[in-house]
């Protein structure tokens, strides 16, 4: 375990030096929120636009950070042979993936906290302490689901093909999940099965004080199951080529 932590610490140090990562995870949602967070009145998913958009942007930064950055790095490190080199150390086999997920969680929590602070002080969203925590935890958990997907892509796909694939997934989950524009009508029928929609809707339900649908929570768990299964198969089946 101490080895995994040592690896995680070094990974975190690396990440602090990587500016591109922060553009997508932190800068993009912050800028969008500053531009649009106070521009609309009326309610979305039963809460004020400012509150909806806060949850929405927190999810955007968190899931894109967990997905694109990680997939790219894992794929590159597999190609370069760094994963291979690590297998020659006494680290247990799972340590590399675990440290990637921990690092991903550490960075998404940063971006989530920043966007929620923005919602509180710029978007005038007022919530009880437990609601802040519940919203943050929901998004944090939902972003971690995408870290598992990133592991699956990173192990399977060559570095030069990672970007187009994560780009398609990023836009797919953002548009279908109602991140760019709230879901309604026919799109909602399809979109409500996406983890991005489920996360945002659970968030707004918490803010609204409505009871959270069990279906949405089960949906997230199912997605986690699917992505973890994909990641496990990807890691196992590439064991000889890593």
């Amino acid at each position, binding site marked *: 375990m101490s080895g995994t932590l*040592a690896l995680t610490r070094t990974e975190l140090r*690396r990440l602090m*030096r990587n500016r591109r990562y922060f553009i997508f995870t932190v800068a993009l949602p912050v800028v969008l929120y500053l531009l649009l967070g106070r521009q609309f009145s009326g309610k979305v998913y039963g809460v004020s636009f400012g509150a909806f958009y806060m949850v929405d942007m927190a999810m955007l930064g968190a899931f894109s950070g967990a997905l694109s950055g990680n997939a790219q790095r894992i794929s590159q490190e597999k*190609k370069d042979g*760094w994963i291979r080199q690590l297998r*020659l*150390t*006494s*680290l247990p086999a799972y340590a590399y993936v675990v440290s990637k997920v921990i690092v991903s969680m550490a960075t998404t929590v940063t971006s989530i906290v920043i966007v929620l602070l923005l919602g509180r002080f710029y978007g005038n969203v007022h919530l009880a302490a437990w609601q802040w925590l519940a919203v943050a935890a929901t998004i944090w958990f939902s972003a971690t689901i995408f870290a598992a997907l990133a592991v699956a892509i990173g192990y399977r796909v060559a570095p030069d093909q990672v970007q187009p694939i994560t780009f398609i997934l990023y836009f797919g989950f953002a548009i279908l999940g109602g991140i760019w524009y709230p879901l309604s009508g026919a799109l909602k029928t399809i979109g409500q099965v996406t983890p991005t929609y489920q996360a945002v809707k659970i968030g707004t339900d918490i803010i609204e004080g409505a009871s959270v649908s069990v279906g949405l929570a089960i949906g997230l768990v199912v997605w986690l199951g699917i992505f973890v299964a994909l990641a496990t198969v990807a890691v196992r089946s590439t064991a*000889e080529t890593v």
Partner: protein
Amino acid sequence: MSQYETGDDHRGRTATKVAEDYTAGYAAGYRGSLGGTPVVAFENVSKHYGRLRAVDGLSLDLRAGETVALLGPNGAGKSTSLDMLLALRKPTSGKIQMFGSDPYHAVKSGRVGAMLQSGGLMPEVTVRELVTLVTTLHPKPEPIDTTLKRAGITQFADQRVDRLSGGQTQRVRFALAICGKSELIVLDEPTAAMDVETRRLFWTSMKEEVAQGRTLLFATHYLEEADQAADRILVINRGRLLADGTPAEIKARAGAKRLSFRLDQVDEPFLLGLPGLVNLEVRRDVVQIQSSDSDATLYAVLDAGYRPHEIEVTSLGLEQAFLAITAEDDRANGHDSTNGHAAGETN
């Protein structure tokens, strides 16, 4: 040591003799202190990729304190063999043991330090940070400054790993292989991408590692390197062990002497039937013979009543011996020797 199948009687006898001599010399040198479990043991190990046999029934033993070169052309199965030894790949059949345990557990217990051709480095960190990380992961770590110094990387320890030259990168990889007190060091083509001077420095520091009682196994296709650094050479080609002996013994194998003389009346059919003959060239009255047993060849010439003059017997270098051994093997198996079996290379 029954690795020398095929071929004529004579060659078979020479090969067996080399193996026996080796075993005898070995037992005399190491008896007592180092008996018991070999550091590494391959037992009839094969690795197949579909129809390709990258490694084909390989058996070998390494003893503590030896410096062994795994010598073979590209695609001979060197990297695949080392990958299996390091538990990165699983053999299709056969058994590998390291320190009496399976490779995976030997690696995880820190008894092996390895430098792979295909091993990468973590980018975006400094050399020192990387060495520190890998040292922390080792169950028996060496002090970090010692490792930096031994690998000759102290002067660029604060540079970023992704901004190093090819030779510098190799030295960092080497540092990762020696950052703990591992008993066995495995190096795959360690001096690739190094210039001559760096290569010399590398082997100097490597000898210091070995002097501490470590066992060293390195793969190379540089013959000079095997000759200078190793006290035992394993020649492999197309996944099989072709020869096993000291550099001198390997040179003695398969036509490792060149015999030349002048002969007034050249009788080619007679010359072609000479014992030990591997290759014959005749230019007017000058006869050049490549022989695996130059004494027997010469005696046969004299016994037949010939009186050649200007007799010269010279040793061939390891390179020619090596080429002769692998070419012979390729011929015996109906392969084009220039083909080099490249599909076996994994990277």
